[in-house]
């Protein structure tokens, strides 16, 4: 394969700098010893990281986000398994329309979803509740869970299942002992991707979260709207650090490109 010329590499360097600059600056400013936004020049200080402990609303919002993301991703994966098996193995009327419906949360603006859920949950008495948040997040992360479960269901060798059936295994036994273990990597990565999507979701959640159920990104967003100070910067730096670790682990285990592109189209190249 041919190499890039010096011009291409210079362009690449600028591009990477553009991509990283805003993320890096957050992490640097978070270490300021001053009481205002500034780049630490003389020394780094953990002052603003310690300050987070004095703001229980950030801690509380963090745990809300973690529980919400874990629960809604798990339920979304649960719903996506039978649907993925139906789409992968059967040719039936309405299959295309159904797939389009399941992927629609990717296309419908999250503002519209937020407004729709605000109206809907207020009407049925779930306004501002954790149950409402979970329901809405299940739907929003469903496409991500479905895509990864689907790609592992499509790539599965069905001969093993047929062998089990011919040896007299019941449907339940085949599913529990053959199908499920084989699609388990898809389930795990689908859950992980769904978890991150839910954890980062702000646009829709800002409409439906009540003071007691506010998630971390929403808390950060509302805080930034009032004023930007080193405290919210250190909170953001923590979020960036945690996400980066999660990202590198996911990349090592599953491959980021496969996670994001969908199928492992790139294997032998």
């Amino acid at each position, binding site marked *: 394969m041919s190499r890039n010329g010096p011009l291409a590499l210079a362009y690449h360097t600028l591009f990477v700098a553009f991509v990283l600059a805003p993320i890096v600056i957050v992490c640097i400013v978070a270490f300021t010893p001053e009481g205002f936004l500034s780049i630490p020049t003389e020394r780094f200080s953990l002052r603003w990281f310690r300050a987070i402990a004095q703001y229980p609303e950030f801690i509380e919002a963090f745990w809300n986000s973690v529980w919400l993301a874990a629960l809604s991703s798990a339920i979304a994966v649960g719903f996506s398994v039978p649907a993925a098996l139906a789409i992968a193995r059967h040719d039936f009327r309405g299959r295309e329309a159904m797939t389009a419906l399941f992927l629609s949360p990717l296309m419908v603006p999250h503002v519209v979803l937020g*407004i729709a859920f605000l109206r809907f949950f207020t009407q049925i008495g779930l306004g501002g509740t954790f149950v409402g948040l979970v329901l809405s997040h299940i739907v929003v992360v469903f496409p991500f869970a479905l895509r990864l479960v689907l790609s592992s269901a499509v790539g599965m060798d069905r001969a093993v299942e047929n062998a089990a059936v011919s040896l007299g295994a019941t449907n339940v036994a085949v599913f529990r002992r053959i199908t499920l273990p084989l699609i388990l990597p898809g389930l795990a990565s689908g859950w992980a991707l769904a978890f991150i999507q839910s954890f980062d979701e*702000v646009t829709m959640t800002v409409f439906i979260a009540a003071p007691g159920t506010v998630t971390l990104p929403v808390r950060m967003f509302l805080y930034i709207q009032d004023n930007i100070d080193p405290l919210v910067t250190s909170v953001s730096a923590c979020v960036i650090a945690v996400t980066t670790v999660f990202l590198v682990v996911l990349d090592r285990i599953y491959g980021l490109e496969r996670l994001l592109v969908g199928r492992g189209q790139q294997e032998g190249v």
Partner: protein
Amino acid sequence: MSVTAPSTPAVRRAWAPYLLSAPALLLFAGVVLIPIAMTVILSFHDWGQYKGIEPVFILKNWREIIDDSYFHEMFLRTLRISVLVTLIAAVFGAPEAYILNRMRNPWKGIFLLVILGPLLISVVARTLGWALLFGGETGVINKALLNLGVITAPIPFMFTETGVVIALSHVLMPFMVLSVWAGLQRLDPQVENAALSLGASHATVLRRIVLPQVMPGILSGSIIVFALAASAFATPAIIGGRRLKVAATLAYDEFLNTLNWPLGAAVASLLLVALVVIIVGCNRLVERRYAQVFQ
């Protein structure tokens, strides 16, 4: 087996996909279709400061959006920002995807992670970074340039359209790189080599071999970036503030500050309809034009 048995497995197989997808279908009907339908209905209701929402069927909100130049300005601004962001992402993202694809392996993987990774990092944190770089007199770059005497006043970034466009381009850039990169994987490097060995220059190869083949990737990336830019909320809300509203932040204000839900619902419905029409239309066009590449 009994006499009626033969038909049973076939019947069961015909019903199986519907039974399997029933839980997810019910969930989507209940939690997606019904709420969106309710929002569209809400946009036809009346609202008053003191009487609240009145469940009648009127066109007042839609007429207001169509007639009032305030809303025209908002939707035109949303369109302008989305088009600019899409262009910037395509012009700068596509070459980067090409360069990335020509890299050797440890670097290729590392930079793919560096460029696509931000997709999973909180939008609020990434936008905050732009506010720290350019935000008023406290912005790091502005302060440095002021101290060096390069500029006498801070470069305006916060509350400007330029600021929103740059920050949004940064937020959505990975989608374009991802889409073009996925398209490049289908490309056979031997075709490039064949053209080179037949005496074509690098520029000719780029123009006549590479570009036509990555065009579908650029176009589908553009559709994604455009749709996400048009409905973006957190970035325009933080960088644009209350002064520079776009469709999404306008709907938010109507809902949570003015409390005029029917009008907010009308803004949201219009955004949804406009986006669906644009996305479906563009998809049709792209698929027809490049039908052979998608096979």
